[in-house]
């Protein structure tokens, strides 16, 4: 019943309009290399302050869905993924376009994206309510160990070394600590500055990490250009059903992979598409064709990266933990609209949750239609000169950071964290763990302190309470496995060649 009511609400004029605006702008921005869904969402959050909460969340969710698919356009036509999640699509999308079939490449990608999104939407509707009910059993130790597990997971699975992932997550935790501590009202780590009394607010930090660091990188790499392929006038993007029958098993398998990887807290779409691509290649009858313009490669990558978006909504809605770094922005937007994601969300804001879940499926259908009818036109705009984009994007950053609190300090925070994010990225520290660490630091500390009060200072409940023990064991297993993998990789490195220096 709630699903039907939510469907009726989502298809009414205003909510549907916001979904459409979100998806269309997400596709456009996602198609431009150097921008991305995270940037667009972070810049849009301040604009949603005066909006209805449900419409605001639908708009941002639509942007997320659109941007994941928009990356397909530049990945296929420019060999430059518009978003990191489209990286695997370049392996087969661009070669297929080079063979004179850009329309087919886009058609396969768009169709796979639709199926991936809808399948993960079905999982979302089926799993979120029972998982939310299960999460009612969580106490402080369960929350603490789950956040610990999330941080270890994202540090070990993110690209780059485990050590750098852990450091990035720890820095994110530290960045959340200055200011007033909510557990006891104690001011800390202000270093004598009055402005630091509120600490570093969520929106300026997200704008700095997602937006400012990216535009500095775009300026540094301003000479980087893709080798463009143009689409012929008669080329259609609308997928044909006969072409799809043979890919049905690959779509379902890749969508399931994308959804389940998305459920793991902190893991993003780029990992999903990598795993799905690898498995599709392993089980393919023609593995050697992967990387040369093979249908199966495009289908696997695009199904998985879109399915990841739906899977990542599951931990966000049910436990209040972002399933992917970009979902941290959605979490931030909900908190700013006085909505607390977590096990009680179905009871306190049931209408919003059902609208979000149904809206997600509707957004994927809207994405499909927008892509089919406008991808060729969007492709023409992909090469916008960075010299125009960079200053305009910064102005939006300033407005977004200033609008929330009317403090210039927050704008300086954007610039500061932009530099932090830029240098961490140059030194190959992954930024995903930083964002997740920052967002979850408050919960982690609060739940640990509550837990220790209940256990009179003992840490034993981490291993004596069954659910907490499970999370602790998973964290330790992932940590151990990642250390083993890195040690084995270094052992197998070839001896260094002698060089003329």
């Amino acid at each position, binding site marked *: 019943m709630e699903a039907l009511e939510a469907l009726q609400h989502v298809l009414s004029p205003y909510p549907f309009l916001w979904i459409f605006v979100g998806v269309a702008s997400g596709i456009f921005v996602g198609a431009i290399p150097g921008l991305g869904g995270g940037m667009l969402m972070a810049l849009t959050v*301040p*604009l949603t*302050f005066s909006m209805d909460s449900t419409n605001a969340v639908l708009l941002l969710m639509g942007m997320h869905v659109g941007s994941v698919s928009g990356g397909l356009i530049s990945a296929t036509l420019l060999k430059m993924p518009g978003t990191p999640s489209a990286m695997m699509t370049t392996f087969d999308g661009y070669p297929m376009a080079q063979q004179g079939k850009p329309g087919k490449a886009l058609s396969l990608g768009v169709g796979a994206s639709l199926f991936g999104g809808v399948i993960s939407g079905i999982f979302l509707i089926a799993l979120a309510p029972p998982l939310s009910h299960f999460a009612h059993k969580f106490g402080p130790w369960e929350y603490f160990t789950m956040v610990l597990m999330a941080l270890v997971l994202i540090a070990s699975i993110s690209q780059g070394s485990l*050590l750098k992932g852990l*450091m990035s997550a*720890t*820095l994110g*935790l*530290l960045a959340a*600590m200055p200011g007033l501590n909510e*557990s*006891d009202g*104690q001011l*800390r*780590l202000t*270093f004598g500055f009055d402005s630091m009394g509120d600490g570093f607010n969520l929106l300026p930090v997200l704008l700095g990490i997602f937006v400012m660091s990216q535009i*500095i990188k775009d*300026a*540094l*790499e*301003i*000479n*980087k*250009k893709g080798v463009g392929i143009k689409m012929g006038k008669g080329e259609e993007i609308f997928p044909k059903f006969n072409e799809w029958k043979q890919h049905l098993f690959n779509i379902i398998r890749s969508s399931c992979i994308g959804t389940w990887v998305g459920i793991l807290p902190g893991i993003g779409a780029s990992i999903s598409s990598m795993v799905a691509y690898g498995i599709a290649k392993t089980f393919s009858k023609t593995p050697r064709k992967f990387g040369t313009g093979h249908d199966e490669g495009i289908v696997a990558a695009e199904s998985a990266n879109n399915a990841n978006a739906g899977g990542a909504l599951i931990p966000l809605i049910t436990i209040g933990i972002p399933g992917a770094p970009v979902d941290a922005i959605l979490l931030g937007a909900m908190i700013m609209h006085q909505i607390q994601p977590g096990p009680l969300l179905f009871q306190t804001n049931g209408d919003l949750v059902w609208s979000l879940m149904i809206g997600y499926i509707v957004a994927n259908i809207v994405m499909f239609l927008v892509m089919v009818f406008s991808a060729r036109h969007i492709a023409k705009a992909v090469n916008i*000169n960075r*010299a*125009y984009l*960079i*200053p*305009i994007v*910064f*102005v939006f950053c*300033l*407005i977004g950071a*200033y*609008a929330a609190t*009317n403090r*210039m300090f927050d*704008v*300086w925070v954007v*610039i500061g964290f*932009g*530099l932090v994010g*830029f*240098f*961490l990225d*140059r*030194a190959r*520290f992954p930024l995903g763990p930083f964002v997740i660490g920052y967002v979850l630091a408050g919960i982690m*500390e609060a739940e*640990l*302190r509550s837990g*220790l*009060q209940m256990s009179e*200072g003992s840490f034993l409940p981490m291993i004596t309470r069954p659910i907490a023990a499970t999370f602790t064991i998973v964290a330790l297993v992932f940590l151990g496995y990642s250390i083993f993998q890195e040690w084995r990789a*270094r052992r197998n*490195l070839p001896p*260094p060649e002698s*060089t003329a*220096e």
Partner: protein
Amino acid sequence: MSRNYRILYLDITISLILIGLATAVLLAAKEIPPPFFDPIGSAAFPKYTAYLIIFLALVIGVRSILLSRLLAPESKRGFKLEPLLATYTVGVPALYVFSMNLGWASFRIATTLFIFALAALLSRFDKRVLIVSAIIAPVFGFGGQYLFTEVFYMDLPQ
């Protein structure tokens, strides 16, 4: 082919900076009052986070030095990096924010000048970009002021 020492130097520099930052955090955490209601208090989390940062920074720095012989050659990018333009992308926005912070210029004027100046610098004073940005800049400066204050009801620096 030369080895990629850039990553090594970056790792060591960042490790040293992070050790310095963590030390500052430990010193600041000493001033937090001891716990009253719960076993660990407000100082524990920052302290143990700082200890973890120092430990990880030492491991990263030492590991980078010990494994420097295994560094891979620097991969060819196929395009030239522009560190000067990246510096402009930090410096010019900082000047823009500074000017409004000190009340030297309103949002409208500062934004118009900022967009034009940064676009000109990033394009290396390309004539076409100069003409287009001369049109875009006041649109965003003056139009943006109207849009965000009158339509979205957001406050802007005045």
